């Protein structure tokens, strides 16, 4: 389609024309905008374009440097401990390597970075589209509200997995190279799977509530601030209620960071490290609570978007 398109002259001069010896040695090409007759990719193509555009929007890619600043700073925060531990593992004698944090303990170092990332990215990808009228552009493309939200959610979750899975995989890789990783291939694969699974669980528990908050407003500053305050607040308040107020420990299921961490502990089957967020609930209630968070938050998002009058 992009090859030059020669214009056939209406009455072409014959190359053999003796009176015009240079005829036929030149051509003028049709350039620039033209019709498109090729295949169209349909809704699937639109979704994939939406997901890629959302990644760029969240990370400030293909934009000026100041738009990249916040997301990349947070990502760096999430990776710094991993890099430090990898460095320590390389430098320290083998005996000490066992003293380094385990994979699941890593979340304790980066939970703040993760919820800041969730808070920032969720508002960046939802609020901006409403404020700039981009949502109207999407809804006049093959996408509709459902596919739009699905694309946004996919893009958001995959982004979150960058900070919930990758640093820990980095640790796994580095520890393995230091011979401090899991013994045997089977164990290695199992650990790998656990890391991915816990990263997914950890990410999803943060992802949906922050999307729900972002769906209520079109000002990203407000959404980011509310989200950033909501996660620690849910931890502090439930801890106070259960710890100080001796209320039912099931209230801890409302503690988003706590729930997320506890899920990872259960996946790795390790004793919990935290002293004050002690979960005694059986695992199935934790899973149920996580699903509840996801469903309720997803419902809030859908309710907000279903009613939304789109400015077109």
């Amino acid at each position, binding site marked *: 389609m992009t090859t030059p398109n020669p214009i056939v002259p209406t009455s072409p001069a014959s190359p053999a024309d003796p009176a015009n010896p240079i005829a036929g040695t030149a051509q003028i090409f049709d350039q620039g905008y033209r019709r498109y007759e090729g295949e169209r990719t349909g809704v699937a193509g639109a979704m994939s374009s939406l997901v890629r555009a959302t990644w760029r929007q969240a990370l400030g890619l293909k934009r000026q440097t100041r738009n990249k600043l916040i997301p990349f700073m947070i990502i760096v925060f999430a990776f710094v401990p991993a890099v430090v531990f990898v460095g320590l593992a390389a430098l320290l004698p083998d005996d000490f390597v066992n003293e380094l944090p385990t994979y699941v303990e890593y979340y304790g170092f980066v939970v703040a970075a993760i919820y800041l990332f969730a808070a920032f990215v969720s508002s960046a990808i939802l609020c901006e589209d409403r404020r700039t009228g981009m949502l109207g552009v999407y809804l006049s493309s093959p996408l509709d509200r459902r596919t739009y939200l699905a694309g946004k959610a996919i893009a958001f979750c995959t982004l979150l997995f960058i900070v919930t899975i990758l640093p820990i995989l980095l640790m796994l890789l580095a520890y393995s190279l230091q011979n401090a990783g899991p013994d045997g291939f089977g164990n290695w694969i199992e650990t790998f799977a656990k890391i991915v699974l816990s990263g997914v669980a950890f990410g999803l528990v943060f992802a949906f509530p922050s999307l729900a908050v972002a769906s209520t407003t079109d000002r990203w500053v407000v959404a980011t*601030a509310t989200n950033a305050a909501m996660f620690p607040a849910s931890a502090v308040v439930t801890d106070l209620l259960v710890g100080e107020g001796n209320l039912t420990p099931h209230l801890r299921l409302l503690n988003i960071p706590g729930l997320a961490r506890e899920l990872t502990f259960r996946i790795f089957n390790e004793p919990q490290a935290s002293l004050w967020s002690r979960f005694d609930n059986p695992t199935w209630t934790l899973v149920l609570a996580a699903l509840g968070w996801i469903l309720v938050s997803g419902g809030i998002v859908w309710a907000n978007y279903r009613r939304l009058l789109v400015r077109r």
Partner: protein
Amino acid sequence: MTPLLALYRVLSRNLLSRGRLTLIGMLGVLSILVAFAINRGNDGDPGLDAGVTFVWFLGLGLVVPIISLVLASSSFGDLVEDETLVYLWHRPSPRWMLAVAAWASSTTVAIPATVIPLSVAGYIASGFDLKVFGASALAITVATAAYSSLFVFLGLLVRRALIWGLMYLFIWELFVARVGNGAATLSIITYPSSILASIADVELAQADRSVLTGILVPLIVSAIAMALTTWRLDNVDVA
């Protein structure tokens, strides 16, 4: 209706968006819940210290400045953002009225959201001590009024007032002011904390001023902030 009242009315209605009301309501409910928790944790001990510390730390330290910031900074901030300030600004009514209306509206919207839940929460957390209730109510009213005046000015001065305000709160009011005495004199939180400490007769860090000082200084701060806001209104370029 006088111009001042009309301004007050439109500005308060502008502040009462669904999102803000939800936020305020949630914070109120949370404070009372936490207060109950503290009360239960006391197990019947006289909880004067616990109640005052709760009001001081969570109330004056966090809830009051943040609610004041959210409301007061958007009082002009929203108008600048929506480019509607001109409809109030261009009218011949005096500019100080506009400043005072903005302050009064954000304070009166904030007070039910701060004073009521936090004083009640302090009352509960202290094991139902009326002195704590009174002290909290006065201290929080003063703090809300003073913070609101500052943030009304900030909302007119800068575009991203929420972020600048949070930075000011966390760096100055909640950190530096609790470290040194000199800095404490120059921060708002010292004065309502002093009211709370004096009336309830409890020791709190950097809260050794008299009740009178505790009331007067925030009032003077509010007056200065209003004067600055009026000056800024006179000189601002309005879209």
